């Protein structure tokens, strides 16, 4: 997995690419999320457009990010959720927990 980050209107946008399956890749995403929290950046969008798939480790990282953001008065939203990840979110009922958007722009706009 590769990870790039950018900011738009004060919102942090994370763009992972590849597969999120555990091991060092997963640690990278987890650490990046927590790095932003420590910097006081609490509005985050994860753009999943280029994520082929993720397993339960990936879902765990998303939950960790979400709960940490919410506990600090922030929010983590998902954009461009692929069919495979949507299916996993549905199976695990996490679709009821995350706010998902069809595009990054929509996700960013929803913070206002």
């Amino acid at each position, binding site marked *: 997995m590769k990870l790039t980050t950018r900011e738009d209107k004060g919102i942090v946008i994370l763009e992972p690419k590849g597969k999120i399956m555990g091991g060092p890749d997963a640690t990278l995403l987890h650490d990046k999320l927590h790095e932003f929290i420590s910097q006081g950046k609490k509005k985050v969008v994860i753009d999943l457009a280029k994520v082929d798939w993720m397993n339960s480790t990936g879902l765990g990282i998303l939950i960790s990010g979400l*709960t940490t953001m919410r506990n600090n008065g922030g929010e983590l939203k998902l954009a461009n959720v692929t069919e495979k990840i949507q299916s996993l979110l549905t*199976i*695990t009922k996490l679709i009821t927990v995350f706010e998902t958007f069809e595009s990054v722009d929509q996700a960013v706009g929803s913070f206002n």
Partner: protein
Amino acid sequence: MTKVIRRKNQIIIPSSQLYLAKVDDFVEGKLRKLKLDKNQLADLAISVTEAVNNAIVHGNKKDPEKKVTLRLICDKSCICIEVEDEGKGFDLNSLPCPITEENLLKEVGRGIFIVRSLMDKVDFIFKPEGGTIVRLTKYLKNKE
């Protein structure tokens, strides 16, 4: 054990998550030759990483002396993948349900639930001498 051992339809890795990507590459490389559809390939790849991760973390407790063995068995009707660890096994009935309200926000505990959702059949074989085999089966769709 520090080396990865690859055979025709088998890969053996040390008990470290550093090797998860190597297992995924091995399995996807083999499965691509079967011309599965994208969804089937993803379901198998996700399930394999779940089973191997469980074998490393929960089965072998990341003991570097213990190995995880993956075997791939394919025929015209199904794909069967076995993941074997050297651990003491576990009680299948003691696994908490990850979709209940109290467990929904837990960061771990979804692996086997996801595997059972994605695979057509999942068998757990607890060997009397020690070690657990998780057998993942996906039946192939008729391509007519």
